[in-house]
């Protein structure tokens, strides 16, 4: 390809030649023709294009939002060519380079291996890739250049940010047989105090409350809350309407962060967790536990895209028959643009499930973006408050999650 310099020299040469014709100036004509000859002859020079092998070494295969990934870019010249190569490692547009550069100019010798490093940060969850690599070499006079795109791709995922929850997440009345860490609001073996009762034969002496004995003069034993594993269903609203706002400030992004946080907490406590993402269709990660399962859930959350407009009632009708009876469901939704919410909740409760809602307020984003005038915004806020009050009046736990608060704050509202 022609460089700017080649175009300028050739253009100048043609101008000189034509100007020479106009002025009948032989000097101009011959000088112009010499310059043109120089450009034409230079085009015969072979522009060396290196044969390279590229690999990247990264500090981790996946990162969390706002996490930093260090990349070591290693390129090896596998041919006998020699010269300068400009290298540009393509990055996702959302990436911010924190240190170093993804562009470099290298002087490569045969069989030489050269490396450079850079660190990048990605503020948004999703699946990304580094590459392809763009390489450019020029001839000795920078008149012509060649470019090549090396399809060296390094894929990685950015998981939603996980916060540390300050208290037990949720309770269930449907314990599984395996012992776990969740308080189930049922008297049984556990560590959390529930009540005192009189000693009956068969009670372990270890459970006797000696202070109570001293006070009341009769044997009293501690009763504890039974703790066990349970099946928890995380339900994520990824409808198109959940993309209100921009960047990290959308109900979907907040919901993903919250879902990741809850999943981590629940799995750490050895519960079975399933994730259902609904929007255009329902994507499922079935019940399971362990670190590997957390990876599956985080990957599914990274893939969640705002699309479709499935109503909650339809989702519930589809899901409930397949869920273990009485399992707690945690819904992450802004509760916007869905007239079936009340019916969906009623039918879920009536079938013995408990449902907890964490609802990021999309109105806060609208207010921040100043897209809605103040008066309609106030009315919308009142309508939302009324809806949340109505849901709470059914005995449902609804956390109204305001923009800027962390997950813990939303949890305290429940």
């Amino acid at each position, binding site marked *: 390809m022609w460089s700017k310099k080649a175009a300028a020299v050739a253009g*100048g040469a043609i101008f000189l030649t034509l100007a020479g014709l106009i002025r009948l*100036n032989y000097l101009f004509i011959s000088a112009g*023709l010499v310059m043109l000859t120089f450009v034409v002859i230079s085009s015969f020079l072979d522009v060396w294009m290196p044969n390279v092998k590229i690999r990247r070494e990264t500090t981790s295969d996946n990162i969390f939002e706002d996490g930093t990934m260090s990349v070591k870019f290693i390129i090896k010249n596998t041919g006998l060519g020699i010269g300068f190569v400009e290298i540009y490692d393509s990055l996702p547009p959302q990436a911010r380079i924190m240190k170093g550069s993804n562009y470099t*100019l290298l002087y490569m010798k045969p069989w030489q291996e050269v490396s450079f490093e850079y660190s990048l940060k990605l503020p948004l969850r999703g699946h990304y890739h580094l590459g392809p690599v763009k390489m450019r070499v020029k001839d*000795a006079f920078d008149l012509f250049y060649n470019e090549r795109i090396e399809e060296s791709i390094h894929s990685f995922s950015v998981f939603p940010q996980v916060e540390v929850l300050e208290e037990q997440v949720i309770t269930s009345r449907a314990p599984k047989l395996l012992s776990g860490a969740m308080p189930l609001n049922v008297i049984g073996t556990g560590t959390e105090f529930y009540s005192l009762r009189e000693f009956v034969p068969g009670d372990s002496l270890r459970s006797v409350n000696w202070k109570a004995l001293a006070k009341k003069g009769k044997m009293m034993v501690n009763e504890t809350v039974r703790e066990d594993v349970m099946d928890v269903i995380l339900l994520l609203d990824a409808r198109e309407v959940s993309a209100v706002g921009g960047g990290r400030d959308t109900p979907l992004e907040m919901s993903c962060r919250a879902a990741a946080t809850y999943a981590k907490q629940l799995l750490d406590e050895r519960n079975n967790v399933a994730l259902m993402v609904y929007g255009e269709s329902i994507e499922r990660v079935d019940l399971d536990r362990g670190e590997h399962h957390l990876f599956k859930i985080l990957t599914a959350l990274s893939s969640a895209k705002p699309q479709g407009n499935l109503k909650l009632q339809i989702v519930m009708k589809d899901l409930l028959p397949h869920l273990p009876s009485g399992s707690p469901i945690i819904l992450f939704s802004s509760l916007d643009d869905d007239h079936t919410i009340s019916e969906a909740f009623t039918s879920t409760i009536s079938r013995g499930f408990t449902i907890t809602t964490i609802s990021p307020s999309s109105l806060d984003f609208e207010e921040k973006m100043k897209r809605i005038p103040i008066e309609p915004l106030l009315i919308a806020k009142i309508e939302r408050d009324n809806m949340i009050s109505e849901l709470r009046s059914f005995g449902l736990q609804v956390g109204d999650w305001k923009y800027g608060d962390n997950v813990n704050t939303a949890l305290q509202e429940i």
Partner: protein
Amino acid sequence: MEENPVEIKTSRIPKIDKIINYKDFFGEYPIIFAIKIISSLSLIYVISEFYIYHNPMDSLLTKYLGKSLKGFNPSPDVFVPWGFAAGFLFYIFTIFKGRYKFLLFILIIGSVSHYIADPAIDMQGGEYTIPTKVDIENSETNATEWKWKPVKLVYDDVDKTYERIDDLKVRMTNIIFGSMPFLGAYGIWKRKGWAIAASIGLAIIIGFLYTPNLCLENYEESYCGYDTKQEDRTWSEYLSSGIFIGLGFVIYIELSYAAIKYENYAEQFKPAGLDISLLTNAQRKSVSRTLSTLFVSYLINLAVILFVTFIIAEIVININNYLSTSDGQIQDSIELQGPYGIVFTSLIFFLLLGIIRMFIGPDHKMEES
């Protein structure tokens, strides 16, 4: 025992690097300094050669300026070296730092003003520069009086000052033709591509304004510097000299561009945004060696290509002469025997080269992904 803190007195004499950015002048590697010197020499050569075939006295500029500017007498022997020196000195001025640049500016203005005003204005000190009470001569009462006569300006040799002003004006007029070397020198040393491009653009404009023997049509022989009309050179003479001027311009463009390019390469080897001092001695030597190797290979490439260009250009330009004089119908073509014929046959030649290029040049196909 308490030790007295050692007072470190800072010297009042500022360090040289606080006054002038001398590193910019020498460059970070000797090879870059050498490239700049070679580029400067090629610039002086090209412009001197250019003015041999474009006598400034025959320029349209001289036709009009010669009448309006007293003493306007452009001579390439004067304005080429001085134009280059002015451009170089202007670059030196720009590398002075902060207040020192301002002080230098004031110094230059002061020196020039003093040079102009010196013959005309003479200062005479008074008898008493400090007010003093002195006795009044021939006074009977021993009366005294205050006397103070500090400085008197005497207008001495005003004509000489006018002469110097005229002389300066004449010297200043040299910048009209001297702007080419001025801009070229500044562009090479300051690494400004636009200045180099402007100097080439000016060469084209000045060449455009040139008409042989124009001076004699408007001025006396004594002013023009030649008495009789020069014999018109044959077009083949012009063409062959044009080849050298064209090659000279290519050398000038390439070397001045190389000065900028290699400076940029040296920048690339530095840690981002930091100084070369962070490189180890071994790294610096390695960079210097790489740049030297590259520049030598570049010079060899340039020499070979220029030689090939010269041969091809000779063929291209002379092929028309052969065609127009060879037997056959083609010599009957009047158009082919003039400048249009030269350009026409040259373009056909380039067309043929282009066709050859299609088959034997490098061809890198994009690999399908």
